[in-house]
């Protein structure tokens, strides 16, 4: 037992007397006089149901979260009456700007409705009828191996931070929970796909693991978010889009269409969080740049690895012949350049200036030119 109650209730005569009085029907009803705001919320759209936006009112609203949460460090709900004697739950993230984004409520509602089931929403029974050579199946299974390996980071990272974030940011914590479920499903679907058509998992990746460790060990939540949501998931989103375009079967294309939906929500949150953060702390842009200097290096290691790049080349070129590989290299490079450009575009939209000039990607492209 790591935490002990400050009161031994069995030794507390006043508490025991209170229980006895209640057993006899003598109620205090002090909670009925709690000085909280009376509201009557209802759905703006009956078809959407009661959304977080519908209850975003008055003292209960996200506007009521102060930038610095100095006095409230418990799970007592935002807007409730806070009695004396509440413990400190040990939250390490107590500034709204260090986690917040202006699209959290909408993304949370969207993510609930757009859940899908990796067991039943994919037509697994159609896979054996799809014509695919053993070598192409192997290339696809290598891609699935890599994606199975990296996807769960986007479950582990929010799971690491959720208990450290002040409970006043409950909508954000809920969105991160949805992300964790999304990524568990991605791990599931790629693992199932690798095992579904005669090959199985292939080679794990050392450089991928280093990148994952870099994300997990980020110094602050915002640094972790920029690394994961904007850099990591931004590039994985591009990989999913590329995967849909080059996938060998209609079954695989649907997998990529569904995972890209989830991934794009996470990227959207990450972009808007960085925007919120930089508006509140413009002088901390250098901290983000400094983190990205190393994070991009880790990402370059992953993007340039044989475990990721080679199956993409084979799948894009649709074969192992010289012409196929040349075409595959061309298309894969196109995809990577597009992903880099979109990454810069998202950072610029978020307000991080000067990344194109400073980026490790820019240096890499100059070296490869």
């Amino acid at each position, binding site marked *: 037992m790591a935490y002990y109650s400050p009161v031994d209730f069995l030794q507390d005569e006043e508490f025991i007397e209170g229980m006895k009085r209640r057993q006899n029907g003598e109620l205090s009803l002090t909670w009925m006089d709690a000085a909280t705001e009376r509201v009557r919320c209802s759905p703006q*759209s009956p*078809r*959407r149901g009661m959304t977080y936006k519908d209850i975003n009112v008055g003292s209960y609203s996200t506007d009521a979260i102060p930038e610095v949460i100095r006095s409230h460090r418990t799970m007592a709900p935002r807007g409730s009456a806070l009695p004396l004697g509440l413990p400190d739950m040990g939250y390490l993230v107590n500034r709204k700007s260090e986690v917040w984004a202006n*699209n959290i409520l*909408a993304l949370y*509602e*969207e993510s*609930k*409705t*757009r*859940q899908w089931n990796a067991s039943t929403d994919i037509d697994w029974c159609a896979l054996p009828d799809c014509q695919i050579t053993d070598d192409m199946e192997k290339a696809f299974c290598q891609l699935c191996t890599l994606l199975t390996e990296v996807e769960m980071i986007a479950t582990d990272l929010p799971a690491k931070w959720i208990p450290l974030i002040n409970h006043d940011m409950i909508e954000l914590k809920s969105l991160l929970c949805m992300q964790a479920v999304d990524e568990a499903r991605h791990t599931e679907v790629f693992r199932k796909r690798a095992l579904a058509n005669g090959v199985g998992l292939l080679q794990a990746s050392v450089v991928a693991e280093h990148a994952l460790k870099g994300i997990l060990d980020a110094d602050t939540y915002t640094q972790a978010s920029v690394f994961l949501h904007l850099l990591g998931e931004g590039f994985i*989103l591009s990989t*999913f*889009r*590329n995967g*849909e*375009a080059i*996938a060998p*079967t*209609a079954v695989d*294309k*649907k997998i*990529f*269409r*569904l995972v*890209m*939906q989830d*991934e*794009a*929500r996470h*990227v*959207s949150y990450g*972009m*808007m969080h960085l925007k919120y953060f930089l508006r509140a702390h413009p002088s901390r842009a250098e901290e983000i740049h400094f983190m990205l200097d190393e994070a991009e290096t880790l990402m370059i290691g992953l993007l340039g690895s044989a475990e990721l790049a080679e199956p993409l080349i084979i799948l894009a070129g649709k074969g192992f012949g010289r012409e196929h590989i040349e075409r595959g290299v061309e*298309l894969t490079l*196109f*995809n990577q350049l*597009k992903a880099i450009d*979109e990454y810069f*575009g*998202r950072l610029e*939209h978020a307000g991080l200036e000067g990344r194109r000039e400073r980026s490790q990607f820019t240096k890499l492209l100059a070296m490869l030119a």
Partner: protein
Amino acid sequence: MDFPSKEFFDRLRTELVGAADEFAHLGVFDASFAIRVQASPGFAEERNYLFRFELDSCTELTETETDGLEDRVDFVLEAPHAIWCEMLASRQPNGEIDAAHTINTLCHFDDPIRVRYRDPLGHDKLFRFQQSVQTVFNVAATVAAEGARAST
């Protein structure tokens, strides 16, 4: 039934409304987008059609002007007339467009479909709602196929 034509898009609007259960299964689809049908041999004049979805329903499907279109929607899908026709003609017996003609396949390499957008958040909606967008084109392919059957 010609593509594009008022008759085609009126019928598509009706079919999209009729596919409410399928859209509802996929979830919230709050987005607006347009398709730009560019001139190509046999099709002289560029046309634009705006789709607006709220919750899971098509609330608007209208022909619109080119000017400022990227500012009025989340993203614009732009391709020559012949490409749109080829995509719509690739419908499979299961009612879906074939694997070589999914909307992402055609636009990912910026050829033959280009995606135009102003705001990265709007662009990302193409991916956040990818399966719903694909469903719109699957339904459109069914309308095209029924139109072709009716005219033979």
